[in-house]
């Protein structure tokens, strides 16, 4: 499967994301923010970082980058799209996912190994996991607090669209939400970083690999 990883000015985790894609057995294609071209990929990953310096709001400028026209169209057409950290913020700003991400309630940048509980394994990016499975991956953010109005939160819960929840709540996210999916299950936003937990040599383990291997079952 060809997985495109978009590089915006200020992306940090694009190289790690491409590596994680390869470790999971897929082909990684580098996509450029300024091109109106997805190069025939089967899935798109928006990586973490500080696109456009986080100016205005995190993800607010990246949302209008040329490549996002094609990403939004493809996402609406059912292509698997995963936004990690800054990528999650971009997906919310693009209205592909509800809610928003604001500054951590404790106001400090958090950088830690974080345990999550997987709550939905029917999305394009979580099918390798079991519901209730606990995974430990890296969390590193300053503005990772997920917020939405109560009606939206109730809808996400009722429709099973919370894909992962923090064990504990490291950043003040409402209902400890770490990741959500859209109605169709092809678009996923996740604040912590599975791409930093795919090899034993570095990171807290290989618990993050499942997000990338899940794509294989989408194709099959």
């Amino acid at each position, binding site marked *: 499967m060809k997985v495109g990883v978009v590089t915006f000015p200020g992306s940090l985790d694009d190289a790690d994301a491409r590596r994680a894609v390869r470790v999971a057995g897929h082909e990684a294609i580098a996509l450029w923010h300024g091109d109106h071209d997805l190069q025939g990929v089967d899935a798109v990953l928006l990586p973490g970082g500080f696109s456009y310096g986080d100016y205005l709001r995190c993800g*607010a400028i990246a949302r209008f980058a040329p490549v996002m026209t094609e990403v939004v169209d493809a996402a609406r057409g059912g292509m698997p799209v995963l936004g990690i950290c800054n990528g999650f913020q971009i997906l919310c700003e693009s209205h592909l996912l509800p809610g928003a991400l604001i500054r951590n*309630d404790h*106001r400090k940048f958090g950088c830690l190994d974080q345990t999550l509980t997987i709550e939905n394994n029917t999305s394009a990016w979580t099918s390798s996991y079991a519901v209730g499975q606990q995974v430990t991956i890296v969390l590193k953010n300053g503005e990772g607090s997920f917020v939405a109005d109560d009606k939206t939160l109730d809808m996400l819960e009722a429709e099973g669209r919370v894909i992962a929840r923090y064990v504990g709540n490291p950043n003040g996210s409402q209902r400890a939400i770490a990741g959500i999916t859209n109605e169709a299950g092809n678009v996923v936003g996740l604040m912590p970083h599975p791409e930093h937990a795919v090899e034993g040599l570095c990171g807290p383990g290989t618990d993050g690999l499942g997000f990338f291997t899940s794509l294989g079952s989408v194709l099959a």
Partner: protein
Amino acid sequence: MARVVVDVMPKPEILDPQGKAVLGALPRLGFDGVTEVRQGKRFELEIDGDLTEDRLAEVNAMAETLLSNPVIEDYAVRVVS
């Protein structure tokens, strides 16, 4: 030429950690009696030509699509000159 100001504020129900940080700093500097601080953004736009109703509607569209995120923020548009 006209100058239009767009004020963007976090919605009342949204936690404002930056405002809280400022609120915490004030008493440390000896400024007492402040019970709440909310921090927002102010945009000053210089608009070319006459500020017609259509142009003002466009400014509102700018405020809604880019300058603010309606999920977490409210905005107010006012013409200052």
